[in-house]
């Protein structure tokens, strides 16, 4: 790892770990230009446990992360990635997941009773666009494939321009998919920019989903090493602490009910 004892050791392998630089609080570049976020911090801990590897964190866009990991520009990448069928053809998923993510619908207060994608679809509501390369897009798409008679209106867009909370509150859309973490920081937190909307919008979780680092298909050894390290971190409850720190909630409490 990056420990001092490893200096000068020929066996140490430098690997590039890409992270989505604009995905707070999962991964982002902080005010000082340093990478941080739940995903990044877990990987930093993993790095410490792996004396044979030295991680270099490279911030990039999520498009580039996917292509870069696939092409071997990066050995691995973290971007709050979900598991999808297509991705297994391009990437190597490790045994151990990285974290948990609560995916939910942001809704206006009066729509509080909508608790699932089925309810949302039945109401005929409109959904904020999701960037096509975001796994949230795939999650909804999978739902739609499973419920051809009651699909959610799904639109591809650019994450840069979509402010889900504002859009829902304005009425530009009826709902939007969001990860709980950002919603927490934006609305629930006292210093959140939309704390004043706390009484107007709600977050209704519809699923808790495992997130994964993506490895280049050649990186079987690295993935195995990662597996060992993460297993240890989970046992030490390190991940639960990070979940608390970045998402304001220990998602591992509901791990039993997580099915993907």
């Amino acid at each position: 790892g990056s420990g001092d004892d490893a200096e000068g050791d020929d066996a140490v392998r430098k690997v590039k770990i890409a992270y989505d630089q604009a995905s707070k609080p999962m991964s982002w570049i902080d005010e000082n230009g340093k990478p941080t976020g739940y995903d990044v911090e877990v990987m930093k801990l993993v790095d410490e446990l792996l004396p044979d590897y030295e991680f270099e964190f490279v911030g990039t866009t999520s498009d580039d992360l996917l292509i870069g990991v696939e092409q071997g520009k990066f050995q691995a990448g973290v971007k709050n990635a979900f598991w999808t069928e297509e991705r297994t053809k391009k990437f190597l998923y490790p045994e151990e997941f990285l974290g948990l993510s609560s995916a939910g619908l942001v809704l206006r207060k009066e729509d509080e009773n909508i608790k699932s994608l089925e309810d949302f679809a039945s109401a005929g509501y409109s959904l904020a666009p999701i960037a096509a390369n975001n796994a949230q897009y795939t999650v909804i798409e999978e739902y739609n494939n499973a419920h051809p008679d009651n699909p959610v209106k799904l639109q591809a867009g650019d994450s840069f321009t979509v402010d889900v909370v504002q859009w829902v509150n304005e009425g530009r859309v009826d709902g939007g998919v969001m990860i709980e973490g950002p919603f927490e920081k934006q609305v629930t937190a006292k210093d959140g920019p939309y704390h004043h909307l706390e009484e107007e919008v709600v977050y209704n979780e519809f699923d808790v989903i495992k997130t994964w680092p993506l490895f280049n298909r050649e990186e079987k050894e690295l993935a195995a090493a990662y597996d060992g390290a993460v297993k240890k971190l989970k046992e030490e409850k390190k991940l639960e602490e990070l979940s608390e720190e970045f998402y304001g909630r220990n998602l591992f409490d509901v791990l039993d009910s997580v099915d993907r």
Partner: protein
Amino acid sequence: MQQSLNIPFLIDTFFTALSGVPITLAVTAVAMLIAVPAGFLLALSRVNEVPVLREITKVYVSFVRGTPIIVQIFITYASVPLILTALFEKYGIQANVYELNPIWYAFIVFSFSTTAILSEVFRSALSTVDRGQLEAAWSVGLTGFQSFRRIIIPQALVSALPNLATATVNLIKATSLGYALSLQEITLKAKVAANAGYNYIEAYIDIFLVYLILCSVVEFAFKKYEQRAARFRVQHV
């Protein structure tokens, strides 16, 4: 480690990208339909030195020329609904701004920027017509309006055509930024298709080909039209 191109995907996605052409053309057409007359009026305001309007036009043109279109898109997309709602509330208009299809934002953004560009195109075209043409028209008893309609505009149009073609091609290219508006045009359609299997390179090759074909056709059409409209310039002697 290196893969080769996924040819079947390349072919399939070419047609997916092609299916975005109607939206691209619709946005282009609407923007042009609005921008041609509006740009012309603004050009007249500068040629004829209409006091306040001339100054406003200058600032407006400078803003459009001075800022990236993607930033104009971001701003429009973020602000237009806010402004409209505020206006509607103030005047008690019962309308929901948010039922707007994103294509309306595309219409707004691209008409807004194209109008500014065309006002410059027309201004320089009008200034290429010799003042003597106007004087000759007056001297045979035409009124100011008649002179413009029958003598000045037909001539200005011809010298505007090459720039009009460039503006159209640039507009078509700019609609590729419609992804930021969730506009279902060529680029976004191909990117969504690419997402399924992460075949980005193939998708971008397809997008590239579609634009190449589209713009070449537009350029060709303009050239043909220019030849027709400019017959009075061709020397047959």
